[in-house]
C-alpha cells in the first residue's frame, strides 16, 4: 500500500492528520509565495509604466489590491480542505445564482453593460468567480467518482450540466471570452478524471457542427472580432487596429526592449487598453524578447508548481482542484498573450496579476490560495462519498 509508506509522517493517526495553525503556515510553500510576489511586482511596474511613470491612476491601486488579496490568499491557504470540499456545492450554486441574478438585474434595470457588484476595493464580476466555483464544483463531483463511474455516460450528465449552465449564462451576457474559458476548463477536468477521448471527439464533432448555428446567434461585434482576426489588414483603423498596433509595439521592442518607461507605442497611446488586456505588449516593448520570455517562464513555473501540488495531494478533490486551477491560470496567460501577439482573436482576457482590474486579480489570488490549501492539506485523506 503505497499510501501508507508515503504518509509515514502522520501514521500515528488513522485517517486525517490535524495540523496546528503554525504548522499550516509553515507548510505554505515559500517558493510559490516568492513567485506570486514576483508576479505582483511585475504588475505594479507595468501599471506604473502604463501611466507614463506615475503611481496614479493604476499602479497604486494595483499594489493595494495585491496586498489585500495576498493576505486573503494566505487566509484561504489555511482553510481546511475538507471544509472547502463541504462548501464546494454551496459556493457553486451561490455563484450561479449571483450570475443569473446579475444577468436578470442587468436586463431589468436596463443596465446591459453592468455585470458587476461593487465591493468597494474591487468591482466583482460573478463570471470571473464562476471559473473558481466551477472548478470547486467539478472537483467535488469527481471526488466521489471511481474510474468505473467516470466511464458511465449517465454519470457525466450532471457535471456536463454544471459546465453548460454557467457557460450559457455567460455567453448570454454576452461574454465570449469567459464563456469559452469555462468550456475549456470543464473539458480539461473531464479529460483529467479519465473521460474517454472518443467522447471528446464526439462532443467536438457536435461543437463543429454547431458552429453555423452559433454564428447565427453571435452579436455583430463578436462576428467582427473573428473576421478581423482572420484578416486584420482589412480594417487597419477599426478593430484590426488593436492587433496591428500591438504587433508593432511588440516587434519594435526587439531583443532587449526600449527600456523601462521608454516604449513609444505605449506612451504615445497607439496601444489600446495598455493597462489591461495589452499590458503584456507594453512590457514586451519596454523589456524586449528576454523580458517577455522571463515573464512567461515565471508564469510557467507557477503553473508547474500548481500541477506538482495537485499530483502530490492524497485526495482526489485536492488533486482536481489544484490541477484545474493551474490549467485555468495557464489558459489566462496563453489566451491573453496569444491574443496580443495576433495568434488568436481579440477576446477580453486579462493577464493574471499584471493587468489592471480587481475581479481577475481576486479570482487568481483566490485560486492561488486554494492551490496552497491543497498543498498544506495534501495529506488529508477523504473517502469517496465521505468528507
Amino acid at each position: 500500500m503505497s499510501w501508507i509508506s508515503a504518509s509515514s509522517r502522520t501514521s500515528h493517526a488513522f485517517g486525517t492528520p490535524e495540523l496546528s495553525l503554525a504548522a499550516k503556515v509553515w507548510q505554505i510553500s515559500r517558493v510559490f509565495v516568492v513567485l506570486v510576489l514576483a508576479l505582483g511586482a511585475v504588475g505594479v511596474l507595468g501599471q506604473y509604466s502604463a501611466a507614463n511613470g506615475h503611481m496614479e491612476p493604476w499602479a497604486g491601486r494595483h499594489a493595494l489590491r495585491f496586498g489585500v488579496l495576498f493576505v486573503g490568499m494566505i487566509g484561504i491557504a489555511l482553510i481546511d480542505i475538507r471544509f472547502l470540499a463541504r462548501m464546494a456545492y454551496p459556493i457553486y450554486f451561490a455563484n450561479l445564482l449571483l450570475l443569473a441574478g446579475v444577468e436578470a438585474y442587468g436586463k431589468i434595470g436596463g443596465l446591459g453593460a453592468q455585470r458587476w457588484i461593487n465591493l468597494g476595493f474591487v468591482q466583482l464580476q460573478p463570471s470571473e468567480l464562476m471559473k473558481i466555483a466551477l472548478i470547486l464544483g467539478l472537483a467535488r463531483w469527481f471526488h466521489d467518482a471511481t474510474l468505473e463511474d467516470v466511464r458511465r455516460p449517465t454519470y457525466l450528465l450532471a457535471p456536463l450540466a454544471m459546465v453548460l449552465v454557467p457557460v450559457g449564462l455567460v455567453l448570454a451576457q454576452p461574454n465570449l471570452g469567459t464563456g469559452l474559458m469555462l468550456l475549456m476548463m470543464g473539458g480539461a477536468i473531464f479529460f483529467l478524471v479519465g473521460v474517454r477521448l472518443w467522447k471528446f471527439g464526439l462532443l467536438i464533432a457536435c461543437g463543429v457542427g454547431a458552429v453555423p448555428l452559433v454564428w447565427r446567434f453571435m452579436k455583430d461585434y463578436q462576428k467582427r472580432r473573428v473576421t478581423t482576426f482572420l484578416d486584420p489588414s482589412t480594417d487597419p483603423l477599426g478593430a484590426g487596429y488593436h492587433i496591428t498596433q500591438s504587433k508593432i509595439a511588440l516587434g519594435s521592442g526587439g531583443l532587449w526592449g526600449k527600456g523601462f518607461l521608454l516604449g513609444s507605442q505605449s506612451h504615445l497611446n497607439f496601444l489600446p487598453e495598455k493597462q489591461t488586456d495589452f499590458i503584456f505588449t507594453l512590457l514586451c516593448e519596454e523589456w524586449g524578447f528576454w523580458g517577455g520570455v522571463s515573464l512567461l517562464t515565471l508564469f510557467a513555473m507557477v503553473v508547474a508548481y500548481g500541477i506538482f501540488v495537485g499530483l502530490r495531494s492524497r485526495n482526489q478533490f485536492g488533486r482536481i482542484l489544484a490541477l484545474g486551477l493551474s490549467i485555468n491560470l495557464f489558459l489566462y496567460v496563453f489566451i491573453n498573450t496569444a491574443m496580443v501577439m495576433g495568434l488568436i482573436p481579440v477576446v477580453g482576457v486579462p493577464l493574471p496579476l499584471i493587468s489592471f482590474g480587481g475581479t481577475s486579480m481576486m479570482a487568481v489570488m483566490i485560486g492561488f490560495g486554494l492551490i496552497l490549501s491543497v498543498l498544506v492539506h495534501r495529506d488529508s485523506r477523504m473517502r469517496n462519498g465521505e468528507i
Partner: protein
Amino acid sequence: MNLPADLPRRRTLGRRAAMLGGLHVGMLGLLGARMYQLQIRDRERYQTLADENRIAIRLLAPSRGTIVDRYGTPLAHNERNFRALLVAERTPSIDRTLATLQTIVPLNDDDLQRIERDVARKRGFVPVLLRDNLPWEQVAAIEVHAPDLPGVTIEIGDVRAYPLGPAASHLLGYVSAVTEADLKADRDPILSLPGFKIGKNGVERQHEQTLRGVAGTAQVEVNAVGRAVRELARDDAQAGPKLTLTLDAELQKLAYEKLAPKRSGAAVVLDIHTGAIYALASYPGIATDLFMRPIPQSVWTELVQDPATPLMNKAITGVYAPGSTFKVATALAGLSTRKVEPDHTVNCAGHFTVGDHTFHCHLKGGHGRVGFAQAFAKSCNVFFYDVATRAGIDAIYDAASTLGLGQPSGVDLPHESAGRVPNPAWKKKVSRDVWHPGETPSVGIGQGDVRANPLQLALMVARLASGSAVSPHLTKTGVRNEWSRLPFEARHLDVVKSGLEAVCSPGGTAAAAQIKEPGMQMAGKTGSAQFRRITQEERDEGVHSDDLDWDEADHALFVGYAPANAPRYACAVVIEHGGHGNTVAAPIARDLLLEVQKRNPGAVV
C-alpha cells in the same frame, strides 16, 4: 474507506496531467516562437512602423512673396494679423470663456455659430479661430485678462495687404482659400494646410508658384490622436521671393483716379520700346479684402449684376468694337497692298454705297474731298469705307493681325481675351455664310464684328509708332529692346502717324486734348464705338447717339502715343458708354501720356 479505488483513478489523473502538461509546453513553445518571429526576426520592420507611427511630418507655411512696382513701391505685401484662437480642451467652460471674451471682443451670432460648429468638429487640442484682424487694443486687453480666459491664445499670422487698394485690384488679383478644384489641379501638399491661401486672379495667380515660396517641414513626435508631443527636427520654410513688376504705382493710381469720374472704363499705358506696362487700370475696382472671408450672397449678386462689371479686368478681358481707332489698321491695309497710295483722296458726300446698302458718315453733309491727313483728323468714315473696300477684307485682316489685334497679346496675366478681326474664314465657321462685300466697309471703321481689348489697342499704336513687333509684359525680368520689324514700309507708317498727329492738331477731333508742353505732344485717334445701331427710322426721326441711355450709349475710345516726334509711350483709354472719344477718352489719355513723360519710367531700367 474505498482506498483501492483511488489508485487507478490517481494513475489516470497523473497520466492525463502529464499529457496536459506536455500540451502546455507545446503552447508555450508556440508563444515563444511567435515572440521570436515578432521581436527578433521581423524587428526592423516593426521598428520602422513604430517610427512612422511616432513621427509625423508637419508642413510649415512659407510667407508669400511681396509684389513691388518698378521703383520698389509695395503693391502687395504681408501684414501682421492678430488672431484669437480657442483651444477647447484647455477651458473648463467654453461658454464662460466666450462670455468673458465678449466683454473685450464683441462676437456676433454668426461668429458664435461658427465657433460652436468648429469646436464640435475639431479635436479638443486643435485651435479654433475666434476672431481675426484684431486691433492692438483688443490684443492687449486679451493678454491682460488671460487668467480669466483659459484656452484663449493670440496668434500672429499673415494677411495680404494691397496698398493701392481698388486701383490695382484687377491687375494684382487676390488670394483666397484653397478649393477642392485647386487641390485636384495642384498636388503641392502645402495647399492642405488650414488657412493657406493661394492667388486666384491677376499677378497673384499668374506667379502663384513663385510667390508661394517653398514649404518647410517639422518632424514632430505625435501620439495616437495626432497631438504633437515634441519637435524632433525642423527645416524652415523659404519665403516666396520678391516679385518686381514693370508697373509705375503712381501712374496706376493716376489712371484709376482719371477713370473714377466715369461709370466704367479701362486705361493702359505701356512702353513702345520695351513693351513694359506702366499702368493697367480697370474701373470700378473691388475692395481688396472682399475675398478674404466668405462673401454674403447679397453682396455677390450685386457685384455680378452690376452693369459696370466690377469683377472684370476690362483692360485685358473686356472686348469692344474699336470704332475709328481701327482706321489705323485699315489705312495700313490699303497702303501696304498698294491698293491706295499715300496721296489717295476721296470725296465725302456724307454717305457711301456698296450694292444696295448705304453707309453714313458722322457728318451729315460730308467732309468734301479728303486725303489721309484730313480723313484721320476729321475721322471721316467715307474715306475709310473707300480704302477698306479697295483693300479688301483679307488685307485688313492681315494688317490688323500684324498690329496685334485678333489674338491674345501674350501678356503675363490670366484671363486675357483674344478679341476678333473678322475674315471670310471666320464667318464661314460661325455662320456657314460667305463674306458679303457690304460687310467690309463696317469692318474698315472698326464696327461690325471687330473686337479688341484695351491692351490690344495700346499695343496697336505701340507697333504703329515703333514699326516693330513689340509685345507687352508686366514682370520686370529680361527687359527686351530688340523686336522684329513689322512688314510695313516706313513711309506708309509715316502717313498714318501724320494722320494721328493731325487728329491732335488744330482742326483735328482731339485738338482740344493736345499736350501743350513742348516736345511732349501726343498723336492719337479717337473712336466712338457703336454699341447699339441706330435704325433708319430713328435716324429719320432725328434720334442721335447722344440721346441714348447710359447702357445703350457708344463706347468712347482713344489710342495714342507720345512724344509725337519720338514715340516712347503708348496709351489706350476705353470709357464704356462714354459717348465721344474726343471729349471723354482723349483728355484722360492726354493726362496719362503727359504724366508718364514727366515721370519717364522708361529711364529706370
